[in-house]
């Protein structure tokens, strides 16, 4: 029979843990709201950007810009996006698992894989596995377009210089607070869109020249993609932290109920024993 004092201690410790998880859940919920807004707000820009690029790209020859050129994928780069902080359920392990699977798959076809990471969790995970990183960024739970640019620019440079032939990104796609998809998406080279059979490309006027515009827009488009990936990853992080903390809070409630029951039983047992002792003591006197 567990000691009464021990059970009491357990109960109060579970309760204080619950307070923490509850608070974390609420913080995550409000951060999620903000991050979700960010994702939604960024969508019109991103989708229009890809429209503009698509309408531009169908009209130029594929070889015209280095970022539209496809090469054999001999050397590839994998960029893994996770969070800095833990306590968000399987969020980070899911991403690294997907990234590991991807690495295993690509091992045969490629000569070399280089790696970049965003987020402390990915960094620590792959550092333990003796990877070296081309780019290493933290992910403090909020982002800006300039951060996306700072991450994407060196990647683009490496691609243009021929150091790598393709770039993939492993991150979490945000669907809703409950559902998130882990995806490995190709960032570079861009998938050139093709026109449908009956579609006729509209003749455009350009200012400045077509080439100058293309050279300007394509990197921007990639920054935009990077930005939305970061936003989605962050929203997913808060979403999964919220769910994780919610279930932790529920578990704590369950546990307190169980422990309280145990405590009461132990208390009653103690009282019963005491009574028995008194009764038998009184009987012995008679």
């Amino acid at each position, binding site marked *: 029979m567990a000691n009464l004092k021990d059970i009491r201690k357990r109960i109060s410790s579970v309760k204080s843990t619950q307070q923490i998880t509850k608070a974390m859940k609420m913080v995550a919920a409000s951060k999620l709201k903000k991050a979700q807004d*960010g994702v939604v*707000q*960024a969508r*019109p*820009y*991103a989708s*229009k*950007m890809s*429209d*503009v690029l698509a*309408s*531009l790209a169908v009209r130029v020859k594929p070889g015209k810009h280095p970022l539209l050129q496809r090469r054999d994928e001999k050397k590839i780069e994998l960029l893994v996006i996770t969070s800095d902080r833990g306590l968000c359920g399987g969020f980070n392990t899911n991403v690294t698992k997907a990234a590991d699977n991807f690495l295993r798959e690509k091992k045969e076809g490629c000569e070399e894989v280089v790696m970049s990471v965003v987020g402390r969790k990915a960094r620590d995970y792959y550092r333990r596995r003796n990877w070296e990183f081309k780019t290493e960024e933290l992910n403090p739970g909020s982002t800006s*377009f300039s951060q996306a640019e700072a991450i994407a620019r060196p990647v683009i440079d490496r691609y243009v210089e021929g150091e790598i032939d393709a770039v993939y990104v492993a991150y979490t796609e945000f669907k809703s607070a409950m559902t998130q998809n882990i995806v490995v998406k190709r960032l570079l080279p861009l998938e050139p869109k093709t026109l449908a059979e009956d579609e006729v490309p*509209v*003749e*455009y*006027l*350009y*200012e*400045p020249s077509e080439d100058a*515009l293309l050279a*300007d*827009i394509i990197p921007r488009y990639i920054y*935009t993609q990077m*930005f939305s990936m970061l936003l989605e990853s962050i929203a997913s992080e808060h979403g999964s932290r919220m769910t994780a903390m919610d279930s932790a809070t529920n578990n704590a409630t369950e546990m307190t109920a169980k422990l309280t029951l145990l405590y009461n039983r132990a208390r009653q047992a103690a009282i019963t024993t005491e009574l028995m002792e008194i009764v038998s003591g009184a009987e012995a006197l008679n």
Partner: protein
Amino acid sequence: MESDKILLEIASPYRQVLNIEVDEVIAPGEEGQFGVLPGHTPFLATVTVGQLMYRQGNQMKHVAVSHGYAEVEYHRVIVLLDAAELPDEIDLDRAEKARLRAEGRLAELGHEDRDYYEELAALDRAMNRISIAKI
């Protein structure tokens, strides 16, 4: 009324700024201002820091814009920008402070400094905001 209106959509990475029907758009292109009336030929241009104006009826309105692109179709103008602000969103104090900061930095830097042009651009943006907020 679709034939004589233009749908003007302005978006920055952080939000959709405008999505309205207008009669005319005048945007600061990199190679000079350009005006768009309904039925404009398809046109793609880079936009630079300045004022984008649009007309609704007799009313002319302004938006502070920074670098970006404008895609013009017959009855639609899509403007994608790094940042865009409507006049009533501009924080005049902040813009003034940004202007003073940029001016201060510029006074210290020489032409050959890398930051010089960044500061110049910052000054540009601040001045642009101030001038629009004061309209």
